[in-house]
């Protein structure tokens, strides 16, 4: 039983890692821009297809591909900000609908470019850390865990220790006051969109060798991310991280000890419970709900 529990904990750590990357990006975009970006799962998908295009097809080193994927998807975020969200800044519903349209465009582009079938991504490494015969952590999954910790720490430092980070937080808390202080709302929106998209993209890059890469892979990730954002508290980065860990552990343990369908129901019940007990989410406050 100890082996089973330990392996399940390792599985949950991996799951929490990539979900938190996606969810934190989603929260950042919502918090700063007030946009529910339905295309966020597709940014995750684009990150995975960067791996298909460069690593699978051209054998470019994986680490370099990860860097390219991060920047590329971040730039797609900038494109979304410029072409959709900035013109619709005062119309959140318009931004939401535009993001749904962009979601379809990205899916169609992926289908046309790479085909509708699952794309093949060769393993980055087949090495496995064997704690015991029954407790094993594949190195690929460890990379995802370490990268998530690294990126989220870097984001924390950026937001708390840099001028850009302060500007971002200030304009999110009170955009008018921030503007009076000379902070450009457009500039902060661009930064938020780049970072949020890049985090989703890098999550796609990191997990591409471990999951099925297809044009519709963003769907399941965005559902988990939305649950996490609601549980954590809309607009709260700490909440997104804590809720990602909670959701991943609950989902993984229930899948292992019951089944995956019950795990999905449990995840939704968790969200419902939080909404009943604390409607603003674990870390949310009334003015952000």
């Amino acid at each position: 039983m100890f082996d089973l529990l330990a392996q399940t904990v390792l599985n949950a750590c991996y799951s929490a890692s990539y979900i938190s990357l996606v969810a934190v990006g989603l929260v950042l975009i919502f918090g700063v821009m007030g946009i529910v970006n339905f295309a966020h799962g597709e940014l995750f998908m684009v990150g995975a297809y960067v791996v298909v295009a460069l690593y699978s097809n051209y054998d470019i080193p994986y680490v370099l591909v990860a860097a390219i994927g991060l920047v590329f998807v971040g730039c797609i975020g900038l494109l979304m900000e410029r072409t959709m969200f900035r013109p619709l800044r005062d119309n959140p519903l318009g931004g939401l609908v535009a993001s749904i349209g962009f979601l379809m465009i990205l899916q169609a582009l992926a289908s046309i470019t790479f085909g509708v079938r699952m794309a093949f991504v060769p393993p980055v490494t087949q090495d496995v850390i064997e704690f015991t015969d029954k407790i094993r952590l594949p190195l690929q999954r460890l990379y995802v865990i370490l990268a998530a910790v690294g990126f989220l720490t870097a984001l924390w430092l950026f937001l708390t220790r840099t001028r850009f980070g302060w500007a971002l937080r200030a304009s999110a808390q009170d955009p008018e006051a921030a503007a009076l202080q000379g902070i450009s709302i457009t500039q902060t929106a661009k930064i938020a969109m780049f970072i949020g998209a890049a985090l989703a993209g890098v999550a796609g890059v990191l997990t591409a060798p471990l999951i099925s890469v297809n044009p519709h892979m963003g769907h399941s990730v965005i559902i988990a991310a939305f649950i996490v954002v609601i549980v954590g508290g809309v607009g709260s980065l700490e909440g997104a991280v804590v809720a990602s860990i909670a959701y991943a552990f609950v989902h993984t343990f229930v899948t292992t000890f019951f089944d995956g369908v019950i795990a999905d129901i449990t995840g939704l019940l968790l969200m419902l419970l939080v909404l009943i007990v604390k409607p603003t989410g674990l870390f949310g406050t009334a003015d952000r709900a």
Partner: protein
Amino acid sequence: MNLKSMITGLSRRGFLGSVASFAGVSTLGASLPGRALAADDNVIKIGFLAPLTGAVAAWGKPGLDGCQIWAEWVNKAGGINIDGTAHTVEFVSYDNEYDPAKARTGATKLIREDGVKFIMMLGGDTWPGVMPVAEQTGMLFSTLLPSDLSPDTTTLIAPAEVHPVYNVTGVEWLAENKPELKTAVMCAQDDALGLPSVATYLAAFEAAGIEMLDEPLLFDPATTDFAPVVTRLMSGNPDIICLDTCYSDYVHPICEQLFQQGYKGQIISCTADFYDQMIEKTSKEFMEGFIFQFPDFDDPAMEAEGINFKHANAFYAEYAKRFPGQWGAVSWEYAAVMDLWKAAAETAGSTEPDAVLTAMLDDGKGMHAFGEADWWGKDLFGIDHALVGNWPVVVIEDGKAHVKALKSIPAWYDKHGELLKKYMSDYGQMWNQRT
């Protein structure tokens, strides 16, 4: 760290207006004809109504590709002879995206606008959307999933694939050839494809004397990380892990997880599409002995006496040349359905749906791709519209799929039919239990 939202108020009217516009644009896009109409009397149009995009496209698009090769070959050889007149055949496709509403729109469009004489479908979740159209028009449809059949589906046939009943042949072969394997566990996606297959495998394992160590582990079709599923499967140290009828998007990551978590036992699965990629993600040794049900058509066994699929090896070579690396379970199936339809239409001297159906079902036998077979299914589906005979058992050896045996489904059913019906009933999969 607090990030305050800047959401402004939304009016209900604005929300509804935007959603309605979005829905309208989507519907308009879906209903646009896929190709121009032709008016040649000597062209027989066949409808291909399957998912060509979306998550289930892997069981539609490769079939259309196979049909295009089939049509070229048939047309080059003189076409279809109807009452002494040669007709060329042309496929008109409609992407139903595995959506029942789009399937209904597609069926209507194919019949009313394109004038097709026969419509091939993947079936499954899309059939309920199409069934009213079939009832109103009398159009002949085919499905790859006989679980769509019921006494009411009088113009629906399942002439290629008897999913999931053929899975019994793999388990039967496994029990005969590896009698030392005595315990099994199974996982499956919780959907219309997974559940009848679960019932079938449970019956097959019980008939073979193989003990199930645990209840089948069901997972949501939206699952992406299969590590918890695999951890649970391996926790009881089973001799056999059965992957049911999982989509290839699941079979691959599950196998990769089994490899990474150190599984060394037997794997059996309905499909193993792109198994070469699975080998690359795991190892040749890990995949050795993997049992599944869909042969590569370059296998010499596919040219053996009794196999009715014409020029199987050449078909595979042509397919591989045009669509490298894309061969899958359904690449040949729709073409095999067309072989049956062509033979029936030529016999009937007509392309009218009722005449072709009558000719097809005449004498209760048909030339299935894998040998002569019976129109069967009253017990399980309430109607004898499934063509059932032999089915291959395929094993991966030294990195390549080989047909190890052609085993008889009716022979198994004669011995263990009650068991199958019991499990189908337990899982609510008998025709009179389905909604």
